[in-house]
């Protein structure tokens, strides 16, 4: 092993758990006296996991991609959407054909700065139009007729992670996406609450009395191991979280709070590779314009604050933000000023290392639709996962996705 390797490994251990490290490593004493030297390495790529982070945001309910990025030069668009089609003069135009919803001004800024890639027509073969099932498909990266019981981030943890906190969902409970075969991510909306829960004196006492036999491979052993891991993860996340603060004001809403927490954790140098959060309410069957406008505003303003916060703390370079929705919506509006469940839609990649900022590909035809009247997909979402896994997180994507998907070149 070369010297740099040793140092990176050691500093990694230090980041993860100093106490544990001191117990374990014989090199501890020498490094203990050069904290600055060690600290210098904390901001470098440190582990087999690497240092780059992925933030995933689900716009839950099925965001209407066509009223988010609007094809304002297509008569078909206005013909199909006589009352909910967005008027040309209200659109933030960016190309001859496409423009942003007026509440996406902050996203337009990112677009101008080269921080945003929009991938059109993302979907999968034989699309399923149930929220439930389609979310499942996106979270497990399965075919539409395949039922997987582990999520794609969970399988990433199985292969490359070792602690629940390697993937954190900013929520009260864990999504399938973060569940692996042998290791699961951890969910927390509030690191302090999670920590308090884990510090119940009764449990601490029970754990103190645990014996090795508890840690066998049997089910009960698995419970004890999970409790111990949960306790130390909660503690670790809490301690990391409290070392940092936000350098940026955030809007006051639940979604912005999720990003605020994510930012604090990222800036703490936590050993977390994937953050997962969501913004719900996009199921706009009726009265779509107001509902969607409000949500897009929440999304865009939250993202703006988040990016600005990361930039100020020098962590934007190593953060990639992926925003998806389980499906887009029907091209033709319905009678209730809304839209019904559709298929392919657009997906946003935000970051500072984009190879192809702007529009990655053309919008699919609005007249050549599938049997349901939905956009046909041209990019399989698993190709995007493969790209993110292979090129951003630098891992073997095939192991995780169980198949080789062609990678794209947006990063």
């Amino acid at each position, binding site marked *: 092993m070369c010297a740099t390797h040793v140092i990176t490994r050691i500093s990694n251990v230090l980041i993860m758990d100093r106490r544990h490290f001191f117990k374990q490593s014989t090199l501890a004493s020498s490094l203990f006296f050069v904290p600055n030297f060690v600290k210098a390495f904390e901001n470098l790529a440190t582990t087999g996991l690497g240092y780059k982070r992925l933030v995933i945001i689900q716009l839950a309910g099925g965001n209407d991609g066509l009223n988010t990025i609007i094809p304002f030069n297509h008569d078909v668009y206005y013909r199909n959407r006589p009352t909910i089609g967005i008027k040309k003069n209200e659109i933030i135009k960016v190309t001859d054909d496409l423009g942003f919803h007026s509440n996406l001004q902050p996203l337009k800024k990112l677009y101008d700065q080269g921080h945003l890639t929009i991938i059109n027509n993302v979907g999968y073969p034989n699309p399923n139009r149930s929220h*439930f099932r389609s979310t499942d498909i996106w979270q497990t990266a399965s075919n539409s007729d395949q*039922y997987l019981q582990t999520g794609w981030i969970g399988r990433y943890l199985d292969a490359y992670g070792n602690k629940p906190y390697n993937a954190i969902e900013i929520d009260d409970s864990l999504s399938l996406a973060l569940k692996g075969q042998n290791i699961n991510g951890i969910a927390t909306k509030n690191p302090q609450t999670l920590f308090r829960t884990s510090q119940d004196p009764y449990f601490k006492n029970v754990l103190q009395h645990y*014996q090795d036999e508890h840690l066998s491979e049997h089910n009960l052993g698995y419970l004890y191991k*999970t*409790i111990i891991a*949960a306790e130390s993860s909660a503690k670790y996340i809490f301690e990391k979280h409290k070392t940092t603060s936000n350098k940026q004001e955030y809007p006051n809403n639940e979604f912005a709070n999720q990003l605020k927490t994510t930012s604090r954790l990222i800036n703490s140098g936590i050993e977390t590779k994937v953050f997962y959060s969501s913004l719900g309410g996009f199921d706009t069957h*009726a009265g779509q314009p107001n509902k969607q406008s409000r949500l897009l505003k929440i999304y865009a303003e939250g993202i703006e604050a988040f990016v600005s916060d990361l930039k100020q703390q020098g962590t934007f370079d190593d953060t990639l933000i992926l925003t998806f929705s389980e499906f887009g919506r029907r091209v033709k509006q319905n009678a209730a000023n809304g839209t019904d469940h559709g298929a392919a839609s657009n997906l946003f990649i935000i970051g500072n290392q984009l190879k192809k900022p702007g529009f990655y590909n053309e919008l699919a035809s609005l007249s050549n639709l599938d049997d349901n009247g939905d956009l046909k997909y041209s990019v399989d979402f698993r190709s995007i996962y493969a790209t993110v896994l292979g090129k951003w997180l630098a891992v073997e994507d095939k192991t995780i996705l169980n198949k080789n998907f062609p990678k794209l070149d947006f990063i």
Partner: protein
Amino acid sequence: MKQQDIQHLYWRAGFGVTPNQLKTLSNMDKHQVVNELFQNSSSPSRLEIDTSELDHFTMKSVLKDKSKRREFINKSTEKLKVFNTIWVNRLVTTDELLREKMTLFWANHFVCRDNNIFHVKQYNNIIRNNALGNFGDFVKAISKEAAMLKYLNNKQNRKQKPNENFARELMELFTLGEGHYSEEDIKESARAFTGYSHNYEGEFAFRKLQHDYDFKTFFGHTGRYDGDDIIDMILDQKQCARFVCRKIYNYFVNDTINEERVEELANVFYKDYDIENLMRHVFMSDWFYEEKNKGTKIKSPIEFLVGMTRTVPVEFKKTKDVLKIQKLLGQILLNPPNVAGWKGGKSWIDSNTIMLRLKLPSIILSNAKISIKEKGDFEDNFEKYYSKKKINKFVSAKIDWETFDKEFSNSSFEDLNHQLIIPELSDGTETYLKTLSQNSKRNFCVQLMSLPEYQMC
């Protein structure tokens, strides 16, 4: 019958056993105990819900008028939440333990999800009625249920345009398991299920014009088969008995599979596909009561919740609280994750669910407090201790400790331990429990329920 064996049987075939039941049962032999279990479940009681609010909807209004349809779905979705709690309540109060446990098992075998309360209720009761009956009849009934016809798209399966979804899952998940049929078998059998549909009320309707009456070649045989014929031909495969018995073994005996036992069960089951006979064989077998099968299963969220409230009755004030608990624990009845159902076992457990599980007894029963008073500490009385914080923020519930007191009045602390905890406690945990003040059985009950060992059955 030995107490430990009774507890094991009652946890696997039900949701635990109360001290009084245990006392009565321990005077009987195994044969009598098992018999009584089946006797109590001999005739099914339907699960009902008042749906009169939805009576004014007609087929015409729901099909033709979009806003009516939306209104119907919204009302129906609300009813489903109530139906969920009615089901949970049934599990807590029923004497038909085995039938209800089997109903849970089959609901996670013939997995289905729908938003029409009438169809869901009917489906749920079809499962309950067939839970201990003939497996062949069961599969045929399921294939004709409105909720299933919708869920796996068999309703869209027409001669002109076959839909293979149901045929595929029928073999992959309901009867044979992956790898025991060909793609061609799926295509051909899908044609046999064409024309299956249902009316507004949820009754099966066979659409002759959409049925493919032509020859189909399935498993090497050729004929003008319909769906029932296909199911009979599947049942002819011994693999079908093996597949189901493997799942039964995994659910009722041990999630570490013993292939020899599975084969033994398959031999029994293959004879007549009689579910009751199969379960009788399981519960009468000596190997069922072997130590390695006891206390090794991780309770499902529902088993955990129901077991707990069967020991200390809890009346939840709000429907949404009951659903919230299920959601956070990772199992909402009537809401399976997908057609493969809940995986069970270790997959119930992650950092968040395990912390909640350990905490839930104290959250519900004692305002999130678990007494850690050591022996000799000054003793408050129990009421005073727990009345400090009256409002329970997490759930609003009424706790019936009096019933618990009555039920456990003759139990010593030592008894309580053995009644609530199925696996052996380690010496360390036992020692720790002994350091705690043993003043209140209620306290001790919450302490025991907060142990990792309480998660096992």
